[in-house]
């Protein structure tokens, strides 16, 4: 959470010789981060990022406590002064209470209220106005400004109502009901969703959107004479919920949602009364209401010195450990080997474990003072990750063959699913998509690839050739989680056979064997079944190679008809022969013979038949076709001997015979 402080306000609580720059630099290393500071009229303004679980440091006194502890470790004299926790506080007794509060259960941590009368509202002193302006707040009047000033100084918001505008016999703090409306000080009409904390007065009006912003009904204005002053601490989750829902991220809301210290209520109340008396001439007109259903009980956490040093990695002497913790407000009871720390009330929520104490010691001592060591952890060797290795191999192979790698978003639109003729019932859908463009998790990469081509159309000379490797998210029946399937997509303009060849060579390079292509019976919907093949290895489906349907190309707006390849990399990897076995190379040269076959079969089948005719047929190369006459160059060879021409002629005859029968 970001806060703005002035150097002067900080020095109300911090006595140090350190300059503003030194404070900013040193404290950033060990405590809240100073995101920058600049000078205005002889004062410095700090932008400070208080760590989310350290709401106690989101104020001038909170930063001062941190700064005093930190600067001391830098050997710069520094001391916390005007510590509100040391104040002796007294309130007048025996006065009546002209107001009555009812509290619903579990909404309020502490609630302190008092009334004042004979107030004269006027502008704040110039110094106060300047201070608020420097901290990014608008000065309003002497009384409202006091509550804002104290929030910045002490980190605990307070609020004032015009007592005369309220029906105060029966004020109720309760959860709002759906549809209730509260008009806040910014004149906005807030429709409540139910469960927001509100105060209802005797006449049934909502007078406060608790912890976020006061209601307009009882707003303090120039005519106000009496005040109802409250210093409450609310249940953090309630405030957070309302503040996010209503998009009212006020400073008060940001503080309350993080659980500020209820032990600070009386000190802040006392300061507020004192300032109202000084600046608005008021006097107390009621006794103090202090509703505190479960008062803070001190807790202690223990810490073993030996463990601490092991955990931080260096030896910090016991005395330093103790002095650091004490400088942060811990009461320390130490033995030779360990200590027991009483956690101060303002650290009640964030200090629970020995690790929490270790953090305090290590950071104040200074992370920057710690040496760095490479850990000597050795894990057992594991078999190599063939999938990751193969993915990178494929990427490099394709990049070296003229293809460009693209990273597309896994999130796609309903429109893209429709245009590629898929059904979004097959996709996981986001409940809270950012926009219609990013609504579904894709289960195929081809639609995105088609869009890549569309985007590049007319921009590049030469053929557009792209690929992507990414997870596709496959819905699984009876499972909430999808199968995250590593997938390869290739989309290239140009000759279909060139890319079939590219795929064949790639698979061979990867040692994937027994590759086969067959006409696809039921390819994914964006493929044209008439020109799409299944790609299999030893009978296992690896994916598809083919042309997208004309309708899909038209829907996308593509003028060309690129070849698409989509491969399931899990299946591919399962077919990699990662330990090829040595086969002796034949000493005898192969004989090459051309042969022409007349057949109605598919070329792939003809080649298979030729190969299956004899073990002596080593390779079959396709040369070309004329009508049903297909020419091949067949290489014959043997590991045992030089083949004689007569043997080859016999083999050629037997090949022809197969096709004649």
């Amino acid at each position, binding site marked *: 959470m970001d806060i703005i402080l002035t150097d002067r306000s900080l020095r109300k609580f911090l006595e140090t010789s350190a300059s503003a720059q030194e404070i900013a630099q040193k404290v950033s290393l060990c405590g809240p981060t100073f995101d920058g500071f600049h000078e205005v009229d002889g004062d410095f303004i700090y932008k400070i990022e208080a760590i989310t679980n350290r709401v106690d440091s989101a104020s001038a006194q909170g930063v001062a406590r941190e700064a005093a502890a930190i600067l001391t470790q830098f050997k710069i004299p520094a001391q916390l002064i005007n510590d509100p926790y040391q104040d002796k506080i007294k309130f007048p007794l025996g006065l009546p209470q002209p107001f009555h509060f009812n509290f619903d259960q579990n909404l309020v941590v502490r609630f302190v209220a008092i009334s004042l009368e004979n107030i004269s509202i006027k502008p704040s002193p110039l110094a106060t106005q300047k201070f608020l302006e420097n901290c990014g707040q608008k000065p309003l009047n002497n009384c409202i400004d006091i509550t804002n000033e104290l929030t910045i100084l002490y980190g605990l918001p307070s609020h004032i109502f015009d007592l005369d505008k309220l029906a105060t016999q029966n004020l109720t703090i309760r959860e709002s009901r759906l549809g209730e409306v509260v008009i806040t000080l910014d004149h906005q009409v807030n429709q409540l969703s139910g469960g927001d904390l509100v105060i209802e007065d005797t006449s049934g009006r909502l007078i406060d959107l608790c912890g976020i912003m006061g209601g307009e009904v009882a707003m303090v204005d120039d005519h106000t004479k009496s005040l109802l002053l409250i210093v409450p601490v609310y249940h953090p989750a309630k405030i957070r919920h309302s503040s996010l829902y209503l998009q009212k991220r006020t400073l008060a809301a940001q503080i309350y949602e993080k659980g500020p210290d209820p032990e600070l209520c009386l000190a802040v109340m006392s300061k507020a009364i004192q300032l109202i008396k000084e600046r608005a001439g008021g006097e107390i007109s009621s006794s103090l209401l202090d509703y505190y259903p479960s008062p803070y009980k001190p807790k202690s956490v223990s810490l073993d010195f030996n463990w601490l040093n092991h955990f931080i990695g260096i030896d910090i002497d016991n005395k330093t450990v103790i002095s650091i913790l004490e400088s942060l407000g811990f009461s320390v009871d130490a033995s030779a080997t360990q200590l027991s720390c009483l956690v101060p009330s303002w650290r009640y929520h964030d200090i629970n474990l020995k690790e929490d104490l270790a953090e305090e010691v290590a950071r104040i001592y200074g992370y*920057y003072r*710690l040496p760095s060591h490479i850990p000597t952890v050795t894990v057992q060797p594991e078999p190599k990750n063939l999938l990751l290795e193969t993915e990178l191999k494929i990427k490099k192979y394709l990049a070296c063959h003229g293809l460009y*790698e693209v990273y597309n978003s*896994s999130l796609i639109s309903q429109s893209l699913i429709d245009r590629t003729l898929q059904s979004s019932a097959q996709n996981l859908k986001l409940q809270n998509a950012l926009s219609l463009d990013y609504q579904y998790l894709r289960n195929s990469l081809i639609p995105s690839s088609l869009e890549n081509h569309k985007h590049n159309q007319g921009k590049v000379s030469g053929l557009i050739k792209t690929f992507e490797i990414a997870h596709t998210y496959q819905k699984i029946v009876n499972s909430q*989680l999808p199968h*995250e399937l590593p997938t390869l997509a290739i989309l290239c303009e140009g000759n279909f056979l060139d890319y079939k060849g590219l795929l064949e060579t790639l698979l061979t390079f990867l040692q994937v064997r027994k590759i086969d292509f067959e006409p696809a019976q039921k390819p994914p919907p964006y493929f044209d079944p008439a020109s799409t093949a299944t790609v299999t290895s030893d009978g296992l489906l690896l994916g598809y190679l083919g042309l997208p349907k004309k309708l899909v190309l038209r829907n996308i707006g593509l003028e060309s008809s690129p070849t698409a390849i989509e491969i399931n990399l899990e299946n591919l990897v399962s077919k990699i022969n990662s330990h090829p076995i040595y086969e002796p190379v034949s000493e005898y040269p192969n004989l090459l013979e051309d042969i022409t076959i007349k057949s109605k079969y598919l070329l792939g089948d003809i080649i298979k038949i030729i190969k299956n005719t004899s073990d002596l047929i080593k390779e079959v190369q396709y040369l070309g076709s004329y009508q049903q006459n297909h020419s091949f160059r067949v290489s014959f060879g043997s590991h045992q001997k030089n083949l004689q021409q007569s043997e080859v002629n016999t083999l050629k005859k037997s090949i022809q015979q197969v096709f004649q029968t």
Partner: protein
Amino acid sequence: MDTKLTAIQTIQGEFTLDLKQVTSLAQVDLLSTRYLGKHGQINTLFKTLPIKSDPQTGRKINDLKSVIETKITEKINQFLSLPTSTTFDVTTPGTPTPLGSLHLITQAIEEIENTFLSQGFVRRRYPEVETDWYYAEGLNIPPDHPARDDQETFFIDQDIVLTAHTSNGQLHEMELKKAPPIKMINIGKTYRRQIDASHTPMFHQFEGLVVDKDINITHLLGITEFFAKSYFGSDRRTRLRPHHFQFTEPSFEIDVSCGLCNGTGLIAKNACKVCKSGWLELGGAGMVHPQVLKNGGLNPDQCTGFAFGWGVERVLMMKTQLPDLRLVYSDDIRFLKQF
């Protein structure tokens, strides 16, 4: 006259004639085969000699052989030293081999992976769509905790999210290994509901986890510094600042010194435009929270660990100074071919 001597003279005469007529290197090679080959004239002549007799004739044939060898070698050298008739313009553009490119992110991930593999880390890949337990509750983030809002999470349903960080891998790794030591790097896609110059709804993170007996804060510093120096350059420095995450205790924000201003925050007395007073934020890290070790099935009394989760695009942008993260996800080939 001895018929053998006549034969020697005849061969010599023919050779002299033949040699005069050769016009190319290939013809010289043929000549060499004809006279000096296994079935060449010289060998044929040798074969006609009776065994163990006539050493004088033998010597003469040998003399002839060496004369022929010398002349052939001379002739070969003569051809080889001839100037080529056409001078070749070596500045003619080469015939281009088709060249594509690897995406920036692939290159960054490979570099990151190799950096950690060299330190003995194991590369993992854990789910990107995840249950609430691995994503939040098991990481010590209870329901309704503010940390859940901060992450700007995409939901599939109440219990299933797209991971906004790679820290879910921590619990998976602990469950896989069942006992320390653990030393893994999980690199994967992550998703957040944000889009602007420094956020895209999908991005990549790398998550390191080291668990063993006696792992301490200085080890986190060691690995952090090793990464920063390997990836950004050996002159870079790192520092930790206090931070808060639910799944680490203590938690840190890690800064790397700015390469542009060399960590000074100033360039020619003006504020550096790239960094905040000399430092760039790398990302979060911390000592694994004892509750997270417990949730992963490890005993926090017997081991400690550190973890970090940093953005691939973040380090990429820190290194390349790309002005807008959304550029990384451009599919414009004119952009892609630059890398």
